[in-house]
């Protein structure tokens, strides 16, 4: 079944998470959603563009729904979107998904281990649910 092309783009914005495996899990999940699962509905932008206040990016995240994905309690993605007055509709913590799958031990930043990959897939499924909810609300 072909999915309809969205009138709007949902921005999936992972934290930069360069210091921790869970940052890579968030980033990987975001790519899974925008490249494989919902390529016509979801997209991303560089979080760093919010940090420096890039006008064009600010306009886009103020006009379109955003989902933040954060790997640690600093919640850089959520806080950068809020500080930029973006339309944040859902904030997801990688640790919340991990809590429901306690057996998984994600490792690696450059390259995730198999359990990290598995967690990224589970997280991507959570993000997709939110994207579909937003799309449903839009109809």
């Amino acid at each position, binding site marked *: 079944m072909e999915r309809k092309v969205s009138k709007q783009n949902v921005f999936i914005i992972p934290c930069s998470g360069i210091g921790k495996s869970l940052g890579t899990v968030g980033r990987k999940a975001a790519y899974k959603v925008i490249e494989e699962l919902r390529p016509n509905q979801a997209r991303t932008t560089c979080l760093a563009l919010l940090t420096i206040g890039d006008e064009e990016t600010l306009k886009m995240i103020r006009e379109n729904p955003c989902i933040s994905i954060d790997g640690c309690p600093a919640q850089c993605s959520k806080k950068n979107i809020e500080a930029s007055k973006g339309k944040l509709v859902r904030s997801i913590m990688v640790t919340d998904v991990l809590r429901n799958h306690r057996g998984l031990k994600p490792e690696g930043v*450059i390259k995730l281990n198999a359990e990290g990959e598995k967690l990224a897939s589970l997280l991507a499924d959570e993000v997709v649910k939110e994207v579909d909810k937003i799309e449903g609300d839009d109809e």
Partner: protein
Amino acid sequence: MGMAANKVGIISCSGEEIPEGTISRIATRLVLEKLRPEETVTICLPLFLAGSEDERAFARVFPTITVDGCDKRCAEIGTKKYSGKPTATVVVTDILKKYPQLNLKSRDELNAEELELAEKVAEEIAKKVDEALSQKRGAKRRKS
């Protein structure tokens, strides 16, 4: 940040939207994990806005090298804006000019060619780490 004496900071752009951003991130990790693990530290760039004054002190505590994927130079601009002037900067698209045959495709998993470019960028960063440390030691000697 008490062990600042012999450390250099590296701040990468997050670069989620483009393959060059992923190169910048992977190259930074290669330096942190493999090339100069004892001499380098990092911080997530968006923490400058999301975090506290402690985080914003980063570039004032460590000589800092920024690594950017594109000429928007978010890491360089963000570091200057919130923390301090970087000691040196690296921009992936500048290095890429030396390899016009390379056509970057992936934002997620790097292929062999892209990984090779990340390694070259990492070597550039490592050179700048060595220069920053040598300047730091020189300044220390002049003081004593």
